[in-house]
């Protein structure tokens, strides 16, 4: 029951968040540039452009345009993309699977690499391997993602010729979802972008897990476990590691949302046909309906991931009540 009430309240919050986002999106759109310039050739006269602007309703006052947008939005219509000439939401949902699979693959790499490395660094804080990992993660955190991406392309596509340099490769359609995970070609195309994307968060997670784990290892109950003569394996992985996870999940959930922001750069470098690339192109083309639809969808994704994180948190730590009331 509590969970249901929580979900309903979150839904209410989501609506408010998206409303605020759409107001902000709408008010900045006039500063993004003139969409007409991207729609017509260089020689088209200003009068002709004005006529088109009138026809498209771009010259109407802000309140009128926003009202029109809201009226459409409550019916699930976020406007029509100038470039794709299709409903903006539909265009974004078409690109969603590509981005989702990229973020999923990157998250998987992050978890599979950062957990063992982070734990190892906590257990052996002074070994040379730890020093190397920590040093490497400092370097990693300070290299911008597009450099990592270009570097990866240079090594693995041009020099070694092992992996493809761009795009998503062969995909399989399952209902409305197109997946690249089921073909060899699709998986090969996923490797470099996923590594590039995970490289942003990897150092952060290694450091986070290491720090949390070291803290836990210093607590009373762990010392008690040692005193009790438990095997080191049991102390590290059952007692200490479980409690390390709590803060990692909270931070991790928020950071997965941030990964979506980084897909903009990664997808652009790899010509990955996802939402991030779509967004950057939309900005370049001043495709305002698409820009606004994108930020609303991403806002929704943030709300959803945060909600899921909160729910998972209660599973890992039953002491926490999501409703916030005292138990």
């Amino acid at each position, binding site marked *: 029951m509590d969970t249901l009430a929580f979900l309903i309240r979150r839904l209410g919050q989501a609506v408010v968040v998206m409303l605020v986002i759409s107001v902000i999106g709408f008010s900045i759109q006039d*500063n*993004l*540039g*003139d969409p007409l*310039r*991207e*729609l*017509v*050739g*260089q*020689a*088209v*006269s*200003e*009068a*002709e452009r004005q006529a*088109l602007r009138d026809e*498209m309703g771009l010259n109407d006052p802000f309140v009128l345009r926003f009202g029109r947008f809201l009226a459409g939005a409550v019916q699930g219509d976020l406007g*029509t993309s*100038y*470039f*794709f*000439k*299709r409903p903006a939401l539909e265009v974004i949902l078409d690109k969603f699977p590509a981005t989702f699979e990229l973020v999923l693959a990157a998250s998987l790499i992050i978890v599979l690499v950062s957990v063992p490395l982070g734990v190892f660094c906590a257990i052996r804080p002074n070994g040379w391997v730890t020093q190397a990992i920590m040093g490497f993660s400092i370097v990693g955190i300070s290299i911008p993602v597009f450099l990592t991406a*270009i570097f990866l*392309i*240079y090594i693995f*596509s*041009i020099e070694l*010729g092992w992996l*493809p*340099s*761009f*795009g998503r490769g062969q995909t399989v359609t399952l209902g409305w979802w197109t997946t690249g995970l089921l073909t060899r070609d699709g998986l090969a195309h996923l490797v470099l972008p996923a590594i590039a994307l995970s490289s942003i968060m990897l150092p952060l997670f290694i450091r986070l897990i290491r720090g949390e784990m070291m803290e836990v290892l210093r607590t009373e109950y762990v010392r008690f476990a040692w005193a009790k003569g438990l095997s080191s394996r049991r102390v590290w992985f059952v007692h200490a590691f479980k409690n390390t996870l709590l803060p990692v999940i909270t931070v991790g959930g928020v950071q997965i949302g941030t990964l979506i922001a980084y897909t903009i750069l990664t997808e*652009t*470098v*790899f*010509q990955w*046909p996802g939402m991030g*690339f*779509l967004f950057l*192109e939309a*900005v*370049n*083309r*001043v495709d305002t309906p698409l820009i606004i639809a994108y930020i609303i969808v991403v806002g929704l994704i943030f709300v959803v991931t945060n909600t899921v994180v909160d729910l998972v948190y209660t599973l890992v730590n039953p002491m926490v009540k999501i409703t916030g009331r005292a138990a």
Partner: protein
Amino acid sequence: MKRALHCLAAAILVAGAASAVHAKSLTMAYDADPVSLDPHEQLSGGTLQLSHMVFDPLVRWNQEHGFDPRLAERWERLDDKTVRFHLRKDVKFHSGNEFSAKDVCWTYERLKISPDFKGLFEPFEACKTTDDATVDLVTKEPFPLVLHLATYIFPMDSKFYTGTDANGKDKAAVIKHGDSFASKTVSGTGPFLIAKREQGVRIEFKRFDGYWDKSSPGNVTEIVFTPIKEGPTRVAALLSGDVDFIAPVPPTDLERVKKDPKVDLVTMSGTRIITLQLNQERVAHFKDQRVRQAVVHAINNEGIVKKIMKGFATAAAQQSPKGYLGYNPDLKPRFDLAKAQSLMKEAGLEKGFNATMMCPNNRYVNDFKICEAAVAMLAKISIKVDLKTMPKAQYWPKYDERAADIMMIGWHSDTEDSANFSEFLVMTPSKETGYGQYNSGNYANPQVDKLVLQSHKMTDEEQRADVLRQVERVLYDDAAFVPLHWQDLAWAAKKGVHVDKVVNVMNFPYLGDLVVD
């Protein structure tokens, strides 16, 4: 009917057998994909590149800047205002419909209502068919550029585009925004059909079995086109063998591509002039011809070409590139700092003055770097420039407002003719006539206006060339604007893909004629 079917079956067999012998597929990547399949929706490079694949024009440009017959076999001038085109008779559209003179005039009428093209076709009065294979294009006044504009007439399948689509809308409608039949469905006469299109991701082309041009050496039966926006990724895709042909090659990668033994680089001097305009309305000093001359003499455009463009451009002293009718061979770049300083002194401005400048940072090759260099060069004649650069989406509204004292503008002549530069860039700006739309300098010279307008009606090429050369001379002497350079074009392809034979200075490769080993 049965006979027709037999013929069709035989044709398919023959075509199948023929293509089995030398069927070649090509993967290619450009920086962007065409906005629409409608050839009249947007006048842009992307649209024209697509049009030359899916449609055929009446005539087309060749590498020597002359005209080659395509759907028009030959043509003749009947009088001052009429040019007659004799059309090929053996041409079919992708839909199977026969091509005839009616389609040409139907297409002409559609061009006349397209917001992007109607300006170009303004001088035309009518398109008349005398029989199925003859078309007369009639102009309002004697008009020298009929053939130039015939390169824009890609006859559309009038039967195919007539009627209403599934949503009850007119199939022929030209819609700039929103859905239309022609933006998603296509039937032309060109060498390729569109087999599949996922906008922004890829287009798959298949060779049209019934293509009329049997003499074309082209042997590519399949093209997979992918837009790759980022220059380094595009180059990487070529060098790693993921694609066979790319354009454009970013200037930073030219050396690398040239050195790679697996690929060929093809470059050509381009026709887009990059200039700076000095706003005489905002800055009174720019009204003084000596000051304008000083600015032109202070800017070392050959240096910019060498250092910033890495030799990947041709330094300019006029608007018309070599090969254009108005190109004046006497005009040379004139960097001379000492002269610039003495001109400033003569104008009483040795102490200099302040000026603002705006440039785009993602429109032209190295645009903002060029502007930064210009700022440094102008500092040497004590003109202190406050430069602002911005993405093109924000730059164009600023340009329309004439928001800075010095602004950058690049121009490609849609007619491939010299007069077009002057019409837009240097003629006296006027809302009524529409001339000088991109003259942010507000340069006004009645003599230039008169000569350019005169050239519009001259059908004698020799005399017209004289007038247009004279225009360039006047602009040069007057330092009407700061000429920088013509950007070069660059393509790169895997060895054995002979793109050098099909590319041209207009940057619409004739891929139907491409030969792949």
